[in-house]
C-alpha cells in the first residue's frame, strides 16, 4: 500500500470570481442572485426541485419551465416561482442568465451565467445516461465549470438502465412466483418516475405507489412523461399485495406503513448500490444500481466537453476528482457546499 498518499484539499477563493461561496450558498455578485441557496435569500435560481437544492423561504425563485410545477409543489403556497424555457436568456444586473437541460430529473438545469464575455456554468446535479423522464444533458461551452462530484471515484460506473430495469422486473417476477410483494425504495422525485417509465418496455401492469410518490408522479404525467399506470397504496390485507410491485420513498423503510405488505422482499435503487458493503449494510434484500448522477467516466467526459479552463467541484468526492484533474494538467479546485450525497 502506498503510504503518504494524502490528498491535498484545494480551496477556492478569489474576489474577481463570477460565482463565490457564501454562508447562504453559491452567489453571483454581478447579478445579485444565489444558485440553490441553503438559507433564505432574496433571489434564488434553482437547478432542480430536490430538497437540498430547493430551500423554502426565498423572495423569489427562477427555475426551468419544465421544473416549475415540481418546484411549486414542494414550496409553500404563494411562493413566487418564475419559469424560464431552456435556452431563453434573462438579464440579472450586468449578467445574462440561461438554463440548459442537466438530465438529472424532470426540469433539472445547468445555469449558464455570462458577464463581460466570461461564461460560467453551474451544473447542479446531472447525468449523461438516457432517461425517458427528462430532457437529456446538453453540453454548454464555458470558461469555468462548476460540477457536482457525488460519485467521483473510478469504482462508480453505471450499467445500462435497460439492464437494471430488466433486473428489477425479474426480481418482481420471482417474488410474484413465491406469492410475496416487492417493495422498491426509490427517491420520490425523479427515481421513482424513472423506474415507472423504464418498466414500460417490459410490462403494462399497474404499480402501487406511496402517497409521497403519487403526487409527484401526477405532475410527471401532466408534463407528458409515459409511465406504467399507478395505484395508491391503501389499507388492505397483505394478500391484496401479494405479487405486486410497490414503489416507496426510502424513509418508509422500517416504518409501520410497511406492515400491510406482510412478508415482502425489499429493493433499493441508488448509485451507492454499486458497492457490496453499501448493499449489505442498508439491509435491503436487493440493491439496484440506478443513479441520476454522473458516474466517473461521465464526469470526466462532461468536464472535457465543457472546454472550461477552470473546474470547480462541489459535493461528493470533489477532493479526489480535483486532485486527479490537476495531475492531468487542469486547473481544478474544491468549492465547499452543503448539498447532500443522498440518492
Amino acid at each position: 500500500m502506498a503510504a503518504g498518499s494524502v490528498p491535498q484539499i484545494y480551496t477556492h477563493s478569489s474576489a474577481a470570481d463570477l460565482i463565490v461561496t457564501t454562508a447562504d450558498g453559491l452567489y453571483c455578485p454581478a447579478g445579485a442572485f444565489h444558485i440553490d441557496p441553503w438559507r433564505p435569500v432574496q433571489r434564488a435560481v434553482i437547478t432542480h426541485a430536490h430538497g437540498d437544492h430547493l430551500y423554502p423561504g426565498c423572495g423569489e425563485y427562477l427555475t426551468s419551465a419544465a421544473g416549475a410545477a415540481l418546484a411549486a409543489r414542494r414550496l409553500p403556497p404563494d411562493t413566487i416561482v418564475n419559469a424560464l424555457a431552456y435556452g431563453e436568456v434573462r438579464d440579472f444586473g450586468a449578467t445574462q442568465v440561461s438554463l440548459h437541460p442537466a438530465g438529472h430529473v424532470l426540469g433539472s438545469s445547468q445555469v449558464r451565467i455570462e458577464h463581460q464575455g466570461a461564461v460560467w456554468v453551474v451544473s447542479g446535479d446531472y447525468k449523461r445516461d438516457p432517461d425517458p423522464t427528462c430532457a437529456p444533458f446538453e453540453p454548454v461551452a464555458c470558461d469555468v465549470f462548476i460540477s457536482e462530484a457525488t460519485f467521483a471515484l473510478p469504482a462508480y460506473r453505471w450499467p445500462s438502465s435497460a439492464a437494471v430495469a430488466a433486473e428489477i422486473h425479474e426480481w418482481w417476477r420471482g417474488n410474484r412466483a413465491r406469492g410475496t410483494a416487492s417493495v422498491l425504495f426509490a427517491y420520490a422525485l425523479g427515481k421513482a418516475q424513472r423506474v415507472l417509465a423504464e418498466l414500460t418496455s417490459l410490462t403494462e401492469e399497474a404499480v402501487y405507489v406511496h402517497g409521497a410518490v403519487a403526487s409527484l408522479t401526477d405532475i410527471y404525467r401532466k408534463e407528458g412523461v409515459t409511465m406504467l399506470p399507478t395505484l395508491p397504496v391503501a389499507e388492505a390485507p397483505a394478500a391484496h399485495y401479494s405479487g405486486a410491485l410497490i414503489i416507496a420513498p426510502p424513509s418508509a423503510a422500517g416504518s409501520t406503513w410497511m406492515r400491510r405488505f406482510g412478508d415482502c422482499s425489499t429493493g433499493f435503487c441508488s448509485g451507492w448500490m454499486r458497492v457490496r458493503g453499501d448493499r449489505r449494510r442498508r439491509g435491503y434484500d436487493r440493491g439496484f444500481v440506478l443513479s441520476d448522477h454522473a458516474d466517473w467516466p461521465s464526469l470526466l467526459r462532461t468536464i472535457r466537453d465543457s472546454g472550461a479552463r477552470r473546474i470547480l467541484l462541489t459535493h461528493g468526492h470533489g477532493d479526489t476528482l480535483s486532485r486527479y484533474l490537476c495531475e492531468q494538467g487542469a486547473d481544478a479546485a474544491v468549492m465547499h457546499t452543503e448539498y447532500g450525497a443522498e440518492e
Partner: protein
Amino acid sequence: MQRFAALFESLDTTNATSAKVEVMAEYFRSAPAADAAWAVYVLMGRRVKRSVGQSLLHTWLIEEAGLPAWLVDETYGSVGDLAETIALLVAADVPGTQAPECGLGADLAFSRWFTERILPLADLDPAAKRAQVTGWWRQLGYRECFLVNKLLTGALRVGVSRSLVTRALAAVFDQPRIQIERGLIGEWQPSADFWQALARNEGSRHVSHPYPFFLASPLEGPAAGLGAREQWLAEWKWDGIRGQIVRRRGECTLWSRGEEIITARFPEITTAASFLPDGAVIDGEVVAWKEDRVLPFAHLQQRIGRLKLTAKILQDIPARFIAYDLLELGGEDIRPQPLRHRRRELAVILEQLSGQIIQLSPQIPEVSWQDLAAQRQQARARGVEGIMLKNWESHYGTGRQRGSWWKWKIDPFVFDGVLLYAAPGNGRRSNLYTDYTFGVWSGDTLVPVAKAYSGLNAEEIQELDRWIRAHTREKFGIVRSVESHYVFELAYEGIAKSTRHKSGVALRFPRILRWRKDKAAGEADQLADLQRVLAEQRV
C-alpha cells in the same frame, strides 16, 4: 463457476436464514458432486493454501487499472475490500470498457476452478502467476472476478454459519444434523468421492476422527436460578485451548476446537495419552502449567506460535491436559449417557495413568450457590476465567445448545482508551470504518494498545464513521489516523508483556463496552494503569 456465483449472490442478497438454507440445499441437490463438495468446503469457511497474497494483488491492480496509485488506494479505501475493488475497476464487464477476447472459454465447473486453476498457481513463478490472475480479471464479470479474488486470498464471508450449511445438508441427505456434523469434522479433501461418502453417511472417516465439541452458553441471570445446587457439577473454566484426545488403534491424536491436529505441538500430552486404553476419546483443555499452577494464556500462545519446539521452550512452558469429559470408551460412543456416568468412567481411566500431565478437572466442592459465587470472585487469583456449570444428567451434545452447560465467567478488566486509527471492516461493514485502534497516555503521547471491532450498535457505527471521515489527520493506504478526541470504555480478558507492540503490553480479546462521550481525551487511562494490572496478574 457461474452457478456457484449465483448461489453466492442469493446468499449475499438475503437476510433470512430459512431462505439461505433453501438456496444452499437447492444448489447441493443440483450441482455435480465435486462442485457440491467444494461449495461445502468454502461455505464452511475453509480455505485452500494461499498462493497469492493481498499485497501482490494490490500491486497488480495498480499496474492494471491505468489509474494513479493514490486514486486506486482512494477507491480501495472507499470500497473497503480489495477483491471487490479489483472487480469494480478491471473486471471484463466494467461498464464502458472493452472486454478482451475471452480466452477462458466456456464456464468452468466450480471444482475445476480449484483443481485446474487456483491450486496449480502455487507452482508458477511470479510472472506466470501475474499473467494468469490478471488474465482472469480481464475475462470474468464483476461477480466471478470478485469471487475468484476472494477464493485466492482466503475466507469467503457470506453470512452463512457452519450450522446453516449442515442444516442444508441434513435436508438434502435426509440425515440428522449430528451425523452431518460428524462427517464434516476434521481434515477432509473436497471431491466427488467425499460428497458420495457424506451422502452415504460415511463422510470423513479418519481413524482419529474427533466428535463435534459441546459448547456452554454464557450464564446471564443468577446461578441460583438454575435450581438445586446438587444437580450441577461446578468446575473451573480453564484458560487454554479446548481439545480432544483421540486414542484409537494404537494411535493418539490431539485435536483443537478449530479442528486442527495439534499432536506434534504438545509431545508431552501425546506421550502421556499413549498410556490410555484403546478406543477412548477425552474432551479437555490444553493449558500451560508450571510449578503447580496454570500460566496465563499468552504463554501457551508462544508455544503454539513456534514451528520448532526446542528443549528450552518445552522446559520453560510445559503443557498439561485438563480432562473434562469422556466421549468414547472401549470404542463405544458414550455421549448419550449422563455426565454423572461419563465423569465416573473418566476418573477410572485417568487413575491408571502415572504422572499428572493428563489430569481430571477438579470439582469445586462448595455446596451452596452463595459459597460458589464467593469462589468465583477468587477465579482471577487462580488464573482461571470463571466457573463452568454442567448438569449431572446432561448428555454430551453438539455445538451450543442452551440449558445444560453454562459458563459463569468473571467480569472482564476495563480501561478507557482514545480512538487513534480506523480502517474499513469486512463484508457488511466493508466501506465503513469499523476496525478501530485505541491508545492510552504515556506521558503526553498516546500509545496504541488495543484493536477492537465490536461493541457499537449500527447507529453508533454510522455516526463514528462520519466523524472519522470528517476528522482524519492522515491516510496510510486504507488506514486513517484521526484527531485524538473520543474516549471509549473497553473490556479485555487478560494482559501480557509484549515485545511486538510499542506499548509493551498485549491485551486479550479487547472489545468496546461504551462510547464515553462524557469524557475528554485527557481523561483516558494511562499506560501505567495497564502495567499495574500486568504486574498484579503475574504475582
